[in-house]
């Protein structure tokens, strides 16, 4: 039996399939960086578990407001964490809305509504990205 070779074209679905894997693994890596840095800054004695969870999901200084950290500007709130937050928002929101698109399109099948739903999800994605980046940079 001879094996056949398939040349995958760079279709939208193919690119998003790869992006879903890469962004998912990146989000786990970013969460690991967040939780390891938190312990390096002294989270063991200054932060309780729910606060640490919130920080791990999203390293925003507003998430550690209820902790015993004396000064968040020492390590916890700076440009590095703003870049990390923007990365997490980009990977997370894109991964999430693309997944939502996949689930909806699985349910509706071939339908006249498909391009409208795609457009609506794209609008939601743009809106969420703009608002999240605004909150990260100007809060």
């Amino acid at each position, binding site marked *: 039996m001879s094996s056949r070779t398939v040349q995958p074209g760079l279709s939208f679905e193919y690119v998003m399939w790869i992006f879903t*894997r890469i962004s*998912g*693994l990146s*989000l*786990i890596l970013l*969460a690991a960086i967040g939780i390891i840095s938190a312990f390096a800054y002294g989270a063991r004695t200054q932060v*309780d*578990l*729910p606060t640490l*969870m919130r920080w791990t*999901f999203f390293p925003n200084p*507003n998430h550690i407001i*209820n902790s015993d950290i004396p000064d968040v500007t020492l390590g916890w709130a700076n440009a590095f964490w703003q870049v990390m937050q923007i990365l997490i928002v980009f990977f*997370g*929101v894109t991964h*999430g*809305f693309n*997944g*939502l698109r996949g*689930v909806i399109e699985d349910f509706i*099948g071939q339908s006249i509504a498909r391009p409208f739903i795609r457009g609506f999800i794209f609008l*939601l994605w743009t809106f*969420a990205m703009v*608002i*999240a980046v*605004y*909150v990260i940079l100007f*809060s």
Partner: protein
Amino acid sequence: MGLNRRVGFFAGLKYRGGGPMWAWMLHRVTGIAMVLFVGTHVFASFFMQQTGSDLATNINIVYESWIFQIVVIFIVIFHGLNGMRIAILDIWPKFQVFQREALWLQLFIFIPIYGLTVFILIQHAVAGSY
């Protein structure tokens, strides 16, 4: 063609796909839950900050409660571990032979992480520290 895709919800549950089927279903449900949770949280935080809206503040208070956190940590850890399994098996397809073993391994990693987190959350909730 002959394939009937119009299967009802309960008829679909009777399909005996076993562990991989349940993992696939839970992955979708937890994924949609996270899109809803994170989307609402982004907008609620924005309006809490900009307009001080009562609704947005109340949404964030619910999100900070320990019961909600037990649910959220289940959703995030399950989706993360299951997604990691899928990504690893897709990167090295020869391990697909062991996909059922991979699912058991995933469960044995999930139980201690989730169990310990829930234990500490309930312990603090009972002690009333937040």
